């Protein structure tokens, strides 16, 4: 029994402070991402959600260059990007696609410049990779309160506009006919998304940010049609996948002989991807219906 236990939880897993911080941040981010993610998937704005991750990473690179706090860089530029996308993106789906693309292209150009300037001044090595991939295990413990506070901001924003947001998402025409300011609600949602994505790409990196935003929500929406239930389910899936991923990454250090662990992001994304594929199987779909 003990052997099985220690094979699952390799020595020191529960005692490691790094694991504690990673599990706390990962759990918080997974919940915030899952809530905003359900609306992102329903509104068909995965591209926007992903693009904002890159936009805020550009902000992070800029903050690194001028010596600002990375939180300000990530969240600040993310909010600006969301505002611009919403302003130039017209209501048509293709117009939105293009607006997102233009903002994303500009942001990538800016990251190239910032990283170029940072790396030539020689301040930080490995900055490119840090900004692009990030890592949940390198997050300092001091970041937990910031993540929690910003997460609450995003959740409250979603909570305030919940009913009208739900209606404008499902049928914008009906919402407009009932006198709901569709444009304004859309903007409020974009700003909440920007905060959520900004904080997740700061805390856990750009890859995981998109994965946790879209993956659990998409899986949940395949299992249920009801928004409230989907949000609860997405939170559960997000948190479980994140913690399982952290456990596997920790254990992977002891696999084989190389004594080198695989990245957490790999495990979490693989779990999310596998569950998306699994819930798409015809057999699963039939039982759910």
């Amino acid at each position: 029994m003990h052997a099985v236990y220690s094979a699952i939880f390799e020595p020191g897993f529960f005692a490691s402070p790094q694991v504690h911080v990673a599990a706390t941040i990962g759990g918080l981010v997974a919940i915030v991402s899952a809530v905003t993610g359900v609306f992102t998937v329903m509104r068909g704005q995965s591209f926007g959600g992903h693009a904002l991750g890159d936009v805020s990473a550009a902000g992070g690179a800029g903050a690194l260059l001028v010596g600002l706090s990375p939180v300000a860089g990530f969240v600040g530029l993310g909010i600006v990007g969301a505002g611009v996308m919403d302003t130039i993106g017209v209501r048509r789906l293709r117009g939105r696609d293009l607006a997102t693309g233009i903002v994303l292209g500009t942001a990538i150009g800016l990251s190239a410049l910032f990283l170029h300037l940072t790396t030539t001044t020689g301040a930080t090595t490995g900055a490119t990779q840090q900004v692009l991939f990030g890592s949940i295990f390198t997050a300092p413990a001091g970041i937990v309160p910031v993540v929690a506070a910003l997460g609450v901001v995003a959740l409250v924003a979603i909570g305030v506009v919940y009913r009208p947001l739900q209606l404008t998402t499902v049928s914008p025409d009906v919402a407009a006919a009932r006198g709901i300011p569709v444009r304004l609600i859309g903007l409020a949602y974009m700003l909440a998304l920007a905060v959520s994505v900004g904080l997740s790409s700061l805390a856990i990196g750009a890859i995981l940010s998109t994965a946790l935003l879209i993956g659990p929500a998409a899986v949940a929406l395949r299992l249920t049609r009801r928004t409230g239930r989907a949000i609860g389910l997405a939170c559960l899936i997000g948190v479980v996948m994140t913690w399982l991923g952290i456990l596997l990454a920790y254990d992977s250090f002891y696999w084989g002989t190389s004594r080198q662990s695989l990245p957490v992001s790999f495990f979490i994304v693989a779990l999310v991807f596998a569950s998306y594929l699994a819930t798409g199987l015809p057999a699963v779909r039939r039982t759910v219906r």
Partner: protein
Amino acid sequence: MFATSFMMNAWITATVVAVVAGVVGYFVVLRGSAFPAHAIPKGAFAGAAGAALIGVSTLLGLAVFALLGALGIGTLGRRGRNDVATALTLVMMLALGAAFLSRTTQYEPEVYSLLFGEVLGVSSSQILPVALLGVVCICAIAVVYRPLMLSSVVPEVAEARGIRTQRIEMLFLIILALATAMTVPVVGALLIFSLMIGPPAAARSLTSRPLLAMLLSIGIALATVWVAIAIAYLYNWPVGFCVGGLGALSYGIGRGWAAWRRSRTAVAESGPVPLLNPSVR
């Protein structure tokens, strides 16, 4: 600026890349496939990491991953939401890239240049494969030109005429993947996207005639890369930044021009405003 051989390599490859990006990008904008156009190059970047790990050529790694990405997006997107499929395929490829990178250390200095481009470092041996892939892409577009155009603009009509739109979509994604594999080593995984969006979008707001728009799109893409290389050479700024900035700038100018022309025709005719360009508005 034109004398040294490495600069000549840069000019030649950038020109090929711009022509391909102008043509393929026109359809990207027309079909609203900006997300796949971003996801395939970015995910293919992971293939380069994998190639470095097992010691095969970078171009092969890029091509394999770009094609895998196209197949993944095409197959998963067939059932369920298209953008979700694209997002999840992208993160899966990137996660594999992260796993590859954690196993190798020799690759790290290359990360920046593969992501953001290293047009000034193109060797003469790279020109031939890039040009070949470019020709293949353009020919493929030319072969499927009519059904591709029809299914992009009026998918319902295309379906009614017996064109299999899903097959066309898959084919287009594969062309996108090939274009990606050839362009990533030159302008970088992230910036080929700017080149495929900015110039075609600008061209489409200038004219609604397809062939003219495509030519304009090539022209703007060429101007963008040429200016970007000149700036990069003269002031040592990253090519990526110049391409991204100029792409957005040309789109902004195109939008401004379209809006100005609309307001003028509206005043001159004082009749119903002609729908110059429905999908950009």
